[in-house]
């Protein structure tokens, strides 16, 4: 049987998105920034109260739900005094109490296609309850952009894929995360809590950080390919992270499931030791820990790592900490650039997990989304 090379693995659309990330995403950021800032300025012109919400709900499905969690720390930092709630689309569509979605509350819905029904349902409900709604969507005339009070039009990346063969998204996820983050920047700017210079500084920071993450991932490709080969012996994949790091862990787990159909679980670093710690087949279990240097729960996350090694699992740590801070040494460390602003980290710290998913899809001979073949064609 012919050996599958790294080059073979990099022919799919998931690898290509990671490869093009450093070049494409900084360009998207200029567009996103301009549109988000304009939407916020228009809101302020309509009613100054709109840019000082008392609570923000952000929703989406799948990756877009991940983006809502990833962007939450940025919104908390940029909108002081405002509570920020990343929520599942089904929750916004029915379970979040109506009285919470009153006037003075902002709801943001993410759907790149602008047609995800549950997101439309959630946003319609939020609007009917009195909340001001912003849709973040790829099309200016999509149902989501039409139904919301305002829309931030997101760039639509052209992913080089074979026709009719959709690939797990990376670029759209980046754009969604950055769309929410820069909507937060726009609101803060319009509310006067940050200056124009600060806002533009964040924009340039994001461009530099995304480029650096994309380039670093390319430098690590050989190492990641070897790691992917080692991980092929695993049958279960466990993703651990806290708050924004949880978003990255969640997104990584999505790519593994979409990519090669892996069975994945996820949790925070404390709950992990109450639950998934007890999985018995440790030799076929890989645990991915996402740890940001600036994480408020860094001490807890570092406590978890020796336990992973002690269990005899394959442990992988995705971090911007210096490698020497990661103990014990048998853990595989994927080093990331440090984000210039802590809340920018989740906008690009998932690339290595995405590339791993791509490599493992090729190595396993699986098709993305099981090729949408029966029974995955519903």
């Amino acid at each position, binding site marked *: 049987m012919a050996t599958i090379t790294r080059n073979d693995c990099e022919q799919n659309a998931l690898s290509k998105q990671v490869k093009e990330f450093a070049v494409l995403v900084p360009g998207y950021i200029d567009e996103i920034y301009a549109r988000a800032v304009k939407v916020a300025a228009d809101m302020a012109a309509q009613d100054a109260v709109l840019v000082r919400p008392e609570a923000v709900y952000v929703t989406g499905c799948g990756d877009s739900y991940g983006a809502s969690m990833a962007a939450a720390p940025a919104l908390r930092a940029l909108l002081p005094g405002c509570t920020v*709630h990343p929520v599942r689309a089904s929750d916004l*569509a029915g379970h979040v109490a109506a009285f919470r979605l009153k006037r003075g509350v902002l709801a943001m819905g993410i759907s790149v296609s602008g047609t995800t029904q549950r997101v439309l349902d959630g946003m319609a409900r939020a609007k009917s309850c009195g909340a001001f709604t912003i849709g973040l969507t790829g099309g200016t005339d999509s149902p989501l952009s039409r139904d919301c009070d305002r829309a931030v039009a997101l760039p639509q990346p052209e992913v080089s894929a074979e026709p009719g063969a959709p690939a797990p998204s990376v670029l759209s996820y980046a754009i969604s995360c950055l769309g929410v983050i820069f909507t937060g920047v726009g609101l803060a700017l319009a509310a006067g809590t940050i200056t124009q210079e600060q806002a533009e500084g964040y924009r340039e920071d994001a461009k530099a950080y995304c480029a650096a993450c994309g380039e670093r991932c390319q430098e690590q490709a050989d190492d990641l390919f070897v790691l992917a080969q080692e991980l092929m012996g695993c049958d279960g994949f466990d993703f651990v992270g806290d708050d924004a790091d949880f978003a990255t862990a969640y997104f990584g787990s999505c790519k593994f499931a979409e990519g090669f159909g892996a069975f994945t679980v996820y949790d925070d670093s*404390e709950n992990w030791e109450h639950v998934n710690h007890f999985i018995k087949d440790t030799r076929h279990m890989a645990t991915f820990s996402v740890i940001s240097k600036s994480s408020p729960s860094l001490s*807890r996350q570092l406590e978890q790592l020796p336990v992973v090694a002690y269990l005899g699992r394959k442990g992988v740590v995705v971090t911007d900490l210096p490698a020497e801070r990661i103990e014990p040494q048998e853990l595989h460390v994927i080093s990331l650039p440090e984000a210039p602003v802590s809340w920018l980290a989740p906008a690009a710290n998932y690339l290595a997990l995405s590339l791993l998913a791509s490599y493992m899809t090729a190595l396993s001979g699986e098709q993305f989304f099981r090729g949408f073949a029966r029974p995955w064609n519903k």
Partner: protein
Amino acid sequence: MNRLDYHSPMVRQAVETPTMLAPIMEASFTDEALRAALPADPSSIKQVILSGCGDSFASGVATYPAFEQLCQLPAQGISALYCGRYTTPAEFEGALVVLNSISGGPSRVIESARHAKAHGAFTVAFTSNPDSPLARECDSILQLKELPDTTGTPKVIAYTASCVGLFYLAAKLAETQKKIDGAEYQAVRDALYRYGTSDFAAVADTIDETVFGYMETWSKFDRYAMLGDGGDYGAALFAGFKFPESVGRMAHWDDTENFNHVGYFHRELDKIGTAMAVSADSPTLQQAIRTARVLCEMGRIPVIATDAERELFPPEAVVCTMPRAPYPWMAAGFLHIPLTLLASYPHALEPDMLAPYRNKQHPWDNGDRLRKSHIEVL
């Protein structure tokens, strides 16, 4: 096979709920005990946080809707790690923070209590140990009394009692805040007691038979997916937690919408057991029914715990019908019971299965790490 021969201590905690729960409710949730757990001026409470680790986290997720619906207050069920390290001052303003831990010992709940108190919240220790570190840390105690000794077995009845206790507390807070009157408060109390005892007793045997009858199929699975929306997500979470604990196998949890975006793409469907918790009054009932249909079409026949009409679900689904809950929020606190049996019987049926929690033998001997985890108050 006689199912009664397989009534392990874990199975018994589920099927004997009525006899185990009655003395707990009578001893623990008296009107006096509930009033003493609340602040002297209950009108000061503007929002509610329910938190804990593992099972106790799930109980907050299952019961927060009761606080929202009865008290008309914003409520959230969050993990102790999030409560202690990430919750913002705005979320603690006028907050009642209920920290649930049967032992009252893990560092994370103690840390959460300190963090919440530092930001002015009123903290309640919901624990069976009134002398525990958690109890000493909090402003008040709601003691779980008459819990049967389930040492070495994954907790089921303690979780059920936790959900019921939080429901009682919600009702008491609603009454003290004059959101419901004394008659309605008593009606809720009566309904809770009846539902957990005589109502459930009427169906316990049928549910046990249904689940046991499915074990020949279910025991072929080696990984599990648990689905639920809103409060039902708490039931799905808890049921999911029982699989790593009891049989040492992986379980994935998600809501019924997100499942269609991610877990739907898992491969090796013949290895995955899928179950759902579905409240009859769920605002997303129709979505849950659609997901059940999709699962059946895929050949992933789900086990469904519900208090809705059997006829709503596909005929091939295995449905465990609970009594119709008298309040929309109530079923979520009980739907875990049938699902728990799914995690309990494989352990009882397979003699070579390692004991619950892997007997806490090497390398699962987590000792007192959870109590010694470093506490930080940020």
